[in-house]
């Protein structure tokens, strides 16, 4: 690999913990590193990651939708209470699963190219 092509850094401005940004960003160009990591040992964890990503996505979509309806005042107090309990339980269960498989939040995010990260 020729050093000639290595880009110079393009940080126009930055603040706070750059390391945190770097580690978040590592998950961005997924098409690239994933190819390298596609060994059979990783398949099971990869599958769990895929499934949990989907579940987490649906959970957040539903929660967002519920909050939106709450804002629009189209939910009764009982409905809000029930939904809140459900989302709380879902969140706790999700947390347990993440701990079990040793995933962090960012592992369950999907980069959608032009749409950005979905979660």
């Amino acid at each position: 690999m020729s050093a000639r092509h290595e880009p110079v850094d393009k940080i126009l401005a930055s603040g706070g913990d750059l390391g945190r940004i770097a580690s978040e960003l590592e998950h961005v160009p997924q098409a690239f590193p994933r190819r390298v990591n596609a060994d059979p040992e990783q398949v099971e964890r990869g599958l769990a990651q895929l499934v949990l990503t989907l579940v987490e996505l649906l959970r957040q979509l539903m929660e967002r939708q519920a909050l939106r309806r709450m804002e629009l005042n189209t939910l009764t107090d009982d409905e809000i209470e029930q939904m809140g309990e459900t989302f709380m339980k879902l969140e706790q269960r999700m947390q347990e699963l993440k701990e079990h498989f040793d995933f962090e939040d960012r592992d369950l995010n999907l980069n959608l190219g032009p749409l950005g990260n979905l979660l």
Partner: protein
Amino acid sequence: MIHLYGLVQGLDDLPDLRGVDGAALERRRIAGLDVVVSRSTRELGEVTHDAILVHANVVEELMSRSRAVLPAQFGRAFTSEEQLTEAVQTKATALERGLTRVRGCVELGLRVLERGSRTDESTGLSGSDYMRTRLAEATERDRFSQELHGPLAALSRTSTRFGGASGDLLQAVYLVPEEQIEAFREHMNRIEGAHPELTMVCTGPWPPYTFADDREESHERSA
């Protein structure tokens, strides 16, 4: 296989660079548009670290020598000159429009991470309290994110704000006229000074990758 780097306007000479797989850069005139490509004998374009950097470097160089560049996405290639010609002809009007849109501008990217993690002490809350807490958080997040984004968008020709990523308070790209880059940087420094608690990074100037394609038009918010 024909590898496409992008479309250019007002380019005098091709940069003295080799393209992907060490192939020479060439230009084509198709439907009144100036197209930069290289030909390679390889059947399949592999995504290698080096190929990506070569592609990016060529686009950078084109950018510094042209009035406008519409960078092409890496990883799509044409099997014949006819296929390339047809593809450019089909999209000629949109490409022309794209070149006009990005002329004289660069792309700046911004990511701002959430200020601390959100309140995770949901145990013991009633369902309603949980929902109200979440709603308040979401509202405050939107408000603050818009407060950061608004002035930057005003300095841009156009901008795109991406949906709320977890951990990202604001993720946006700005198409900024070259003469506004300094003002943009100064504004970033002001934000940094006013909010030392924020973790953020602004990158660029990039060739206008994010604003190159039509699909972005639906995301545009006028400044």
